[in-house]
């Protein structure tokens, strides 16, 4: 009896404590970053101001006045929105074709798409930079949007393919009998039925595009530079200005955290898709 009650006590209190512990552990760096963003650079490294300090908005004012935050933020929005749209415009028809008109090569094509994600980005860094400069697209929106779209396209197609597979084939065939065109099939049947899946895919791709740093930092200087570049640019050579860097980082991740908060339900659906039928 004693063992049973000890066990039930563990599951009653232990699990929530563990869950909270893990959640706090993950949340702590974000919390620390936000906290630090309200300290001066001098205070940020002093142990006595660890928790208690005089909050200041100087870092944020500095960000908008001296570092052109809004230009980077606008570029991030342009890149993420356009890249997400482009990914869906290419991904939806591709996934549709593979889900409803599969050929013998479909499985191999899907695996091949996924395999492109296994290539280390660094391996193609210099060819990409030379190519971009050679055709005069270096530091342009066109380049950044194209590259960010293409690296996320395999994930988008895989996600959409999985959602589309859940739609009974009979419904698509009923549509064919009823005389819908291919575009009508997508517009009248596929999109309404897979709306949740398409929204989840769009959201996740948007987040990936927003967070993309490797390529956006390396393929831009100023015109098409996103918030990732702003963070990277605040790595001052004489040492890290923690307050300033934290403010930049907070301002960069802020929008996406807010977006994620409002779309939690869609996100969980997207991340666990296919887990339970």
């Amino acid at each position, binding site marked *: 009896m004693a063992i049973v009650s000890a066990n039930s006590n563990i599951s009653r209190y232990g699990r929530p404590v563990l869950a909270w512990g893990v959640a706090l552990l993950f949340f702590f760096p974000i919390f620390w970053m936000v906290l630090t963003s309200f300290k001066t650079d001098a205070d940020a490294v002093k142990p006595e101001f660890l928790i208690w300090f005089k909050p200041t908005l100087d870092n944020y004012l500095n960000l908008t006045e001296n570092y052109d935050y809004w230009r980077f933020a606008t570029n991030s929005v342009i890149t993420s929105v356009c890249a997400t749209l482009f990914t869906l415009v290419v991904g939806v028809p591709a996934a549709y074709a593979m889900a409803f008109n599969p050929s013998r090569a479909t499985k191999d094509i899907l695996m091949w798409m996924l395999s492109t994600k296994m290539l280390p980005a660094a391996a193609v860094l210099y060819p990409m930079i030379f190519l971009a400069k050679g055709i005069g697209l270096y530091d342009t929106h066109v380049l950044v949007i194209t590259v960010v779209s293409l690296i996320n396209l395999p994930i988008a197609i895989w996600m959409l393919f999985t959602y589309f597979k859940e739609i009974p084939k*009979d*419904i698509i065939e009923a549509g064919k009998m009823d005389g819908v065109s291919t575009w009508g099939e997508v517009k009248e049947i596929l999109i309404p039925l897979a709306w949740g899946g398409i929204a989840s895919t769009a959201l996740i791709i948007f987040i990936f595009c927003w967070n993309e740093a490797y390529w956006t930092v390396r393929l831009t200087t100023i015109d098409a530079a996103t918030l990732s570049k702003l963070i990277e640019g605040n790595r001052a050579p004489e040492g890290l200005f923690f307050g300033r860097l934290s403010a930049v980082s907070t301002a960069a991740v802020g929008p996406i955290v807010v977006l994620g908060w409002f779309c939690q339900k869609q996100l969980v659906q997207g991340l666990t898709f296919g887990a339970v039928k």
Partner: protein
Amino acid sequence: MGRIVLNNVTKSFGETQVIPSLDLTIEDGEFAVFVGPSGCGKSTLLRMIAGLEELTSGHIEIDGDDVTQVPPSKRGLAMVFQSYALYPHMTVRKNIAFPLRMEGRDQSEINKKVEAAARSLNLTDYLDRKPAALSGGQRQRVAIGRAIVRNPSAFLFDEPLSNLDAALRVGMRLEISEMHKSMKTTMIYVTHDQVEAMTMADKIVVLQAGVIEQVGTPLELYHTPGNVFVAGFIGSPKMNIFSGSEAEKLGAHTAGVRPEHIDIDLSDGTWKGTVGVAEHLGSDTFVHVHDTVLGDLVTVRVAGDVAVKHGDTIYLTPQMDKIHKFDERGLRV
């Protein structure tokens, strides 16, 4: 009009040939039923007529026009699927109106047709519901409604009643038959249920492994099955089929007699046996008899109630004029 002709039609999936060369004509206004065990190619054949499955070779004609390369919606056919295949995001009204909307008809005509179809199918009260809020029978009616409004030259039914419970199935069977009688439109109906085939068809096409075993009216198939397969497939309970010395005595390699064509007696008869199970249905009694010279279990159907029970000794006498004889290739002699 809806005369459908299949010429040398074949179908292969990769290396596997599911339908070797096949010819078939379905006359205008006919109710044709494709029946056969699962995997016999009957659904594939229907889907080829619909245009949902490409032909490996051969031609399909509808009313004299070659439609082999014509897309499904342009063939003038309407299909009712086993799974109903309704559009779950649309109301009943929108589901039924969908094919008309795709044809670009004007709204007043669409409304008129949808309401007429709904009235004839008792769906008027459900027009603003979504399919999820309907019962299986109602969903099937919506699927039929969606087919009717197109005014097709032929209806194709792919096992439409398989998902319904037994009582509903009988009701829907009658409704579809009534619909055929009043509309006089060609209908092709696929089923694995030979009772559906027998009760609904003008013409039954019995298929096995993609090959047509026999084409005929229900009673032709019942009275003169062309081969052993058809003899065993058509009729419920199944025909008793036997070969060996008892068949040779009748001058055949294989012989068969239907359960309703065997008389029983408790003291005298051709074949002696022991009662295994007697199923009393009230109107009929099915007696399953073991240990006869025929080897296999013999089923006898007797009208009314018969007082036999497990373990009773029983004598069976076949009605000689009702015996079916087949040669060593299984063909009728």
